[in-house]
C-alpha cells in the first residue's frame, strides 16, 4: 500500500515576465541564482531537507530547461522507488482539455497524482523564492493548531505590504481576515504563497471550485475555505526569504550573497542546497588579475578583473576585462578589455571585445520601465554582442546582435534591442 504523510506540489509553470529577457526562453524557476544554482533548487532542496520525498512539479511555460535540470531528481535525492520528483505538464483529456489557467486549477488537474500517494497533507509551493525553510516544522504547527489550512507568512514593511496579500490573525495564529494588495494595510503579515492543506479539505475545495475560471489559491481557494468555516492558521516564518520577482530584487538578492557573512549563507553545512552540477573542474584565476568580493562557480577562467559580482560555472573573463556589480551566468564569455558594470548577463552570452556595458547617463526604459529599472543592463541567454559597442543603463538585449544594430556603436540608456534570431 502506498502512503505518504505529506507530498509537495511545486508550481513552476509561470513565465515571470517581470524578469524581462531572462525568461524569454526559460521558465522563471529555471533562471540561475547565486552562481551555480537555479531558483527551483531552493524549494526542491527544502523539500528533501524537510523529509518530503514526493514532489510534483507543475510546468507549463517553456519547460525544456526545467525538465533537463530536474531529470529524475538525482541531485536532490528525489529518485525514489515510490514518490520522488514527477514533472506534471498540462495534458489532453477526452473533454475539457485546457492549459493550467490558475495556480489552483493546475493543482486540480492533478488530483489523480495526489490521490495516488494517499497523503494526509499537501504542501503547495511556488518555484520563485529564495529561502531555507523546514516544512516539517510548519507541518507540526499545522497539526498542533488542528488547522485545515496553514499558510506561511512573513513580516514585511508597511510599504511592501501593499504588494502582497496580508492576513490578520489572532494570538493563536488563527486567521480572521484577508486583504489582497491593500491600499492601507492593517497588518504586515504577508502570505508567502506556501500552504499546507489537510488533503480532504483541499480536495473538496478544488472539486467545488472546479468550474471557477482561472482558479487561484489566494483569490478563490483560501477565501472559499474561510467562508466555509475551515480553520486557517498563519505560520510565521522568521528566516531569510527573498522574492526575486523583479530584475532589481533578483540582482539585489544575488549581491547579498557576497557579503562577508551573508544573511543567506550557502556555506553552512546544515541545510545544503543541491543542484545539477554539469561542470566539475576547479576555476582558474590567472596572473595579473584581481578578484575581490565575488563568488565564482566551477570551471570559470578569470584573466581580467572581477569585483562585487556573482559568476556562474564555465564563465570566461578575458584579459583586460573588468566586471563590477554584475551577475554573469553559466558559460558566458566576456571579451578582452570589455567593461561590465551593474549588468545581468544570462547564460552562454558572447560579449565581444572592448564593449562597455552599463555606461551613459541614466534614462528610463522606453518600452518596459517597470521591468528594466534600477540602472541595470540585462542581456538574454545565447545573445551575441559585437566588439567595440557601448551600451547604456536600463537596457535590454536579446538575440544575435551585430554592429549595424548599434548606431554609432552605441545603445543609449533606456533602449531595448530584441533580435529575433534562430533561437527565438
Amino acid at each position, binding site marked *: 500500500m502506498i502512503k505518504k504523510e505529506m507530498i509537495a506540489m511545486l508550481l513552476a509553470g509561470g513565465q515571470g515576465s517581470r524578469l524581462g529577457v531572462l525568461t524569454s526562453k526559460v521558465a522563471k524557476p529555471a533562471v540561475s541564482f547565486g552562481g551555480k544554482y537555479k531558483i527551483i533548487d531552493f524549494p526542491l532542496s527544502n523539500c528533501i531537507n524537510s523529509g518530503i520525498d514526493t514532489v510534483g512539479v507543475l510546468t507549463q511555460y517553456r519547460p525544456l530547461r526545467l525538465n533537463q535540470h530536474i531529470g529524475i531528481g538525482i541531485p536532490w535525492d528525489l529518485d525514489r522507488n515510490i514518490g520522488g520528483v514527477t514533472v506534471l505538464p498540462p495534458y489532453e483529456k477526452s473533454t475539457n482539455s485546457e492549459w493550467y489557467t490558475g495556480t489552483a486549477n493546475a493543482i486540480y488537474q492533478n488530483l489523480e497524482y495526489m490521490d495516488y500517494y494517499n497523503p494526509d497533507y499537501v504542501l503547495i509551493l511556488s518555484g520563485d523564492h529564495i529561502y531555507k525553510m523546514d516544512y516539517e516544522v510548519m507541518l507540526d504547527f499545522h497539526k498542533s493548531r488542528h488547522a485545515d489550512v496553514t499558510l506561511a507568512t512573513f513580516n514585511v514593511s508597511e510599504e511592501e505590504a501593499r504588494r502582497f496579500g496580508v492576513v490578520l490573525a489572532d494570538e493563536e495564529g488563527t486567521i480572521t481576515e484577508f486583504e489582497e494588495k491593500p491600499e492601507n494595510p492593517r497588518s504586515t503579515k504577508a502570505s508567502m504563497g506556501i500552504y499546507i492543506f489537510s488533503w480532504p479539505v483541499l480536495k473538496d475545495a478544488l472539486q467545488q471550485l472546479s468550474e471557477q475560471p482561472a482558479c487561484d489559491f489566494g483569490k478563490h481557494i483560501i477565501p472559499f475555505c474561510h467562508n466555509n468555516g475551515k480553520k486557517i492558521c498563519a505560520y510565521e516564518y522568521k528566516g531569510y526569504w527573498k522574492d526575486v520577482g523583479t530584475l532589481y530584487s533578483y540582482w539585489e538578492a544575488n549581491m547579498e550573497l557576497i557579503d562577508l557573512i551573508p544573511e543567506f549563507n550557502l556555506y553552512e553545512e546544515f541545510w545544503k542546497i543541491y543542484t545539477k552540477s554539469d561542470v*566539475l573542474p*576547479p576555476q582558474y584565476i590567472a596572473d595579473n588579475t584581481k578578484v575581490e*568580493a565575488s563568488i*565564482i562557480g566551477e*570551471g570559470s577562467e578569470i584573466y581580467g578583473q572581477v569585483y562585487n559580482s556573482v*559568476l556562474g560555472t564555465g564563465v570566461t573573463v578575458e584579459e583586460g576585462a573588468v566586471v563590477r556589480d554584475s551577475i554573469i551566468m553559466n558559460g558566458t564569455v566576456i571579451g578582452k578589455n570589455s567593461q561590465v558594470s551593474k549588468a545581468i548577463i544570462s547564460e552562454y552570452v558572447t560579449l565581444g571585445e572592448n564593449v562597455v556595458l552599463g555606461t551613459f547617463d541614466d534614462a528610463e526604459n522606453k518600452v518596459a520601465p517597470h521591468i528594466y529599472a534600477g540602472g541595470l543592463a540585462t542581456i538574454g541567454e545565447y545573445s551575441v554582442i559585437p566588439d567595440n559597442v557601448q551600451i547604456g543603463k536600463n537596457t535590454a538585449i536579446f538575440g544575435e546582435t551585430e554592429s549595424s544594430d548599434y548606431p554609432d556603436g552605441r545603445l543609449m540608456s533606456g533602449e531595448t534591442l530584441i533580435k529575433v534570431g534562430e533561437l527565438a
Partner: protein
Amino acid sequence: MRAIGIILAGGNSNRMRELSNKRAIAAMPMAGSYRSIDFALSNMTNSHINRVAVFTQYNSRSLNEHLSSGKWWDFGRKQGGLFVFTPTITNTNSYWYQGTADALYQNLNFLKESHEPYVVIASGDGIYKLDYNKVLEYHIEKGADITVVCKDLSKEPEQLERFGVVKMNDDGRIREFEEKPLVAESTIASIGVYVVRRRQLIELLENCAKEERNDFVKDILIRQKNVKKIYGYMMDSYWSNISDVDAYYKTNMDFLNKDIRDYFFKQYPDIYSKVDDLPPAKYNKGAEIRNSLVASGCIVNGTVENSVLFKEVFVGNNCTIKNSIILNDVYIGDNVYIENCIVESRDTIRANSTHVGEDRIEIIVEKNSRYIL
C-alpha cells in the same frame, strides 16, 4: 561491449611519504576537484566499458567512500556496473593479495562469469585520457596476446626508474621488458595499462597460480615475453603517474598550464567525479589570487599564488600561500605563510604560523583540532 575493465588500486608507495598514511594512491585528490582514480574510471566509461572492477587493498576507506556509488561515472546500470573487490578470507585462501596477478586470480570468478571477450587492465594512479578502444583495435590488428600501453619518456628520463621499461622491434612486439631498472636501456615506459583476451588472461593467471607466482609484470609479462606475443601500443598524449610526491606535486601544477587544463577540462571527453554539492568559491575583500586553481566551497581572504586549492579550503586574512597544494577541507588561520608545501586534507593550520619547504616539497600534517569562533 567487447571488454570489461579492471582497475588495480590496491597499491601504496613510500615515495608518497606521509600522504599515503591515510589513503591509497588511487584516492589521492587531483587537480582541485578530482581523485586520481577518476581518470581511469572516466576513460573506462568514455570507452563504453560498462563492467568495471576496482581492486583495493591498502587503506581503502577513502577510496571506498569515493566509490560508494557508480552513478557518477554512469556505472549505475543493469548491464555491468562498478564492482569493488577487497581481499576476503575463503575456505581455500586466507592471504591478502600477494601481488597484482594474485589479486586477479583471487577474483577469477569475476573474469569467468563475464561474457565480454577482452579485458582492459589499468592502474588507479595514472593521469591521462585514453580511448581504450583504440588500444583494443591495435591489439586485434596485431593479433597480440597481450598489449601494453607505452609512453616515450625521453624528455624526462629520470622518471624511468619508477616504471617498467620496454624495447620493441619494428613491428611493435616487445622484445625486452625490465621492471624499474637503475639504468634504463630504452626510454619507452609501460604505463600499466594492458589489453588481453579474457580467456587468455584466465589461463595465464591459473598457470601463474599453480607455480605460486603472484606478480602480473614479473611473472606474466616478463616471463612470457618470448612465448606470448606481447605488443606495445604507443600513446603520445599527456600522461603522468602520481605515485611519488614530486610527481604528484608537478602533475597538479601542470593544470595551471592552459593547454593541459583545456585538454582535460574542455575537450571531449570529460572526466567525471563524485559530486559534492558545494557552493561556488568565494573571494572576500583583500583576496589576491594569481595563477591558481580554486575548487568549489573555498573561501579566500588572503593571497594565493601559483597554487592549487582543493575543495572547501578556507584561507584567512593576510595569509600568503605560494607554490603549494592545499588538499580538501583545510582551514588556514590568519597571517599564515605557506610555501612549497602540500597541506594534508582536513587539517587546520594555526594562525601566525610559517611553513616553508626548503629544498623539497614539505608535507604538512598538523592534526590540529579545529575551533572557529
